[in-house]
């Protein structure tokens, strides 16, 4: 088949859109891994939870509270969902994860995987996996923008913008501010940092809360594009882990750039050879691991 400039550009644009979601999710994973040393398998489930807060907030909370006219609107969901999920995350960190910091990574992985399965199971039981449409997309984000080579849905542009803002502000805070330097120091040498009067356990709890809160935010942003379903996180998380591995475990800029890049690689594959689109990321992972085991942006240990 012939591939025009227009096709390539539009696929790159769509790839950037998917890549933006990969970037936000892998960023959260990288922050949590970098600072807590936890491989957070619950990340996909918490992303799904964010989407469900938006969905049920819009469709069900009114009825539950006896006010049928109440709908949690999209803008409110952008704040409420990360808060709810962030608090839940902090609860998980305080009651479960905090007991595992001294033992092998594997325990954290298994625990969070268990949490993910439980969350997914509960939602599957209640909502079924078919996926439910989210009706709360605001009017102002309907329609499409003419980019010259294609009509691109406004909402997708908005979702790319949100993702980029979240990614780069998080990177700025961690790499360029005092708070960030405490965070980084706290993971290197918690006792020394504590001696300076900084509450390290609290800082760690807040970090985990933040990491999962941005996953939930991504969930809300994803809700109008993809169907909201209990397995949406499970489908995404495998790819996102591949992104983290390719970018280099724990490297924040690495996850952001790799996420965006892999989204576009995947987009191009969909035009050139569609059947490979679901595996191209893993092929890249294998290649990167063979050539540079610490990942593209990872530091050698």
């Amino acid at each position, binding site marked *: 088949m012939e591939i025009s400039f227009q096709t390539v550009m539009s696929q790159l644009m769509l790839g950037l859109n998917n890549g933006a979601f990969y970037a936000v999710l892998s960023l959260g994973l990288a922050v949590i891994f970098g600072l807590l040393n936890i491989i957070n398998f619950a990340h996909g489930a918490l992303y799904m939870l964010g989407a469900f807060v938006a969905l049920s907030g819009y469709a069900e909370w009114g009825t539950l509270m006896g006010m049928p006219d109440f709908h949690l609107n999209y803008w409110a969901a952008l704040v409420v969902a990360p808060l709810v999920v962030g608090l839940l995350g902090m609860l998980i960190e305080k009651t479960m994860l905090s007991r595992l910091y001294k033992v092998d990574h594997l325990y954290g992985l298994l625990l969070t995987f268990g949490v993910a399965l439980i969350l997914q199971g509960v939602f599957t039981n209640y909502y*079924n996996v078919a996926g439910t449409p989210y009706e709360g997309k605001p009017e102002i984000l309907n329609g499409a923008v003419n980019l010259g080579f294609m009509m691109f849905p406004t909402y997708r542009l908005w979702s790319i913008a949100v993702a980029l803002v979240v990614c780069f502000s998080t990177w700025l805070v961690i790499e360029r501010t005092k708070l960030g330097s405490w965070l980084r120091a706290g993971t290197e040498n918690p006792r020394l940092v504590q001696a300076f009067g900084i509450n390290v356990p609290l800082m760690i709890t807040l970090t985990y809360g933040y990491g999962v809160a941005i996953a939930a935010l991504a969930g809300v942003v994803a809700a109008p594009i*993809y*169907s909201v379903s209990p397995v949406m996180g499970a489908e995404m998380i495998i790819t996102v882990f591949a992104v983290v591995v390719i970018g280099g475990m724990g490297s924040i800029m690495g996850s952001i750039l790799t996420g965006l890049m892999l989204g576009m690689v995947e987009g191009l594959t969909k035009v050139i050879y569609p059947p490979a689109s679901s595996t191209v990321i893993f092929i890249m992972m294998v290649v990167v691991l063979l050539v540079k085991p610490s990942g593209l942006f990872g530091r050698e240990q």
Partner: protein
Amino acid sequence: MKWCIRATACAAILGMAASAGAAGKGISDGVVKIGVLTDMSGVYSAIGGKGTLVAVEMAVADFGGKVLGKPIEVISADHQNKADIASTKAREWFDTGKVDMVTGLLNSACALAVQKVGADKKRITMNTGAGSTDLTNKDCTPYGIHYAYDNYALGNVAGSEVVNHGGKSWFFITADYAFGHSLEKNTTSFVNKLGGKVVGSVRHPLSTSDFSSYLLQAQASGAKVIGLANAGGDFTNAVKQAGEFGIVQKGQTVVGMLVFDTDVKSLGLKTAQGMQFASGFYWDRDKATREWSQRFFKKHKAMPTMDQAGAYSATMNYLKAIKAAGTDDPDAVMAKLKSTNISDFFAVNGKIRADGRMVHDMYLMEVKKPSESKADWDILRIVKTVPGDKAFMPLSESTCSQVKK
């Protein structure tokens, strides 16, 4: 003491002989076991899943829980849409699980695998969920029944309708496995037959969340009709995203080749209104379908799909055939099934042919406008009824080796 042992041994031998004699006719292993093997957790689980199990259990309860004085049991498993898991499970059920019949089998790859295992082990498979026409053509077996619908009927009833109304050029977005390929092939043959043309197609992996790339390729092709040869979650995602890119507003028609009530529900009437597709069942067709579906709804909290209603009907007719044959011997039951007309709330003018195809009336459905819907599940209307012998592939065209020509 010695006498006592000898007497016990004699009694034991006599007892064994007696039960061996009974196994010749009657019910083997003292139980009729039905296995529901379907997608319980994946992209198709709303179409089949627990609902299929509920329907089969209803059939067993309605039958009275016993056949020829022996209990009927139902077991179920999740094949996860993986053919290897499906055939391993079926083999285990047939070898050690005393399972006599497997139904459900949503997903063509799984259905083809299990039907083959069934043939090797001489056990009946009554497939209500999968669409591939290979099941009753090149891969047909003496023990396989294809119950609810197939891709030929879908392409025939819905595809032809679209072409006759001016949809002459098509582009397919196809699920990349046995079912999608077969649906695309069948529909293509009808499009060509009626003077239409297929200008291109693109294949996506099962369970895809982002269809935008494929939709843009379909848009760029300039085809009048975008045919979605996929199902379940894949279908609903593709339709929603087609709306996002304004594909319908720009004059292309999106046609789902296999659509279930649960998909329409998931899309919402606002998005799905006016869509036409073929189906073998609709809960609101007549008094009998409504009565049964309301009972099903009470148990499952959703109206039945064609797969689920079909699984009830298949199970019921299987049990009736055992009763009529006086045995659960697969050959005798198959002979009975193929020689009896099937008529219940599910199937109108139903008959199982030599190739295993259960032929019955099919319907062209249309999704109602939100303003026309009076109740929660009041979502479809029957536009046209196509008699079974017009809807399904004629036996003369079947390439099944079971068909004597």
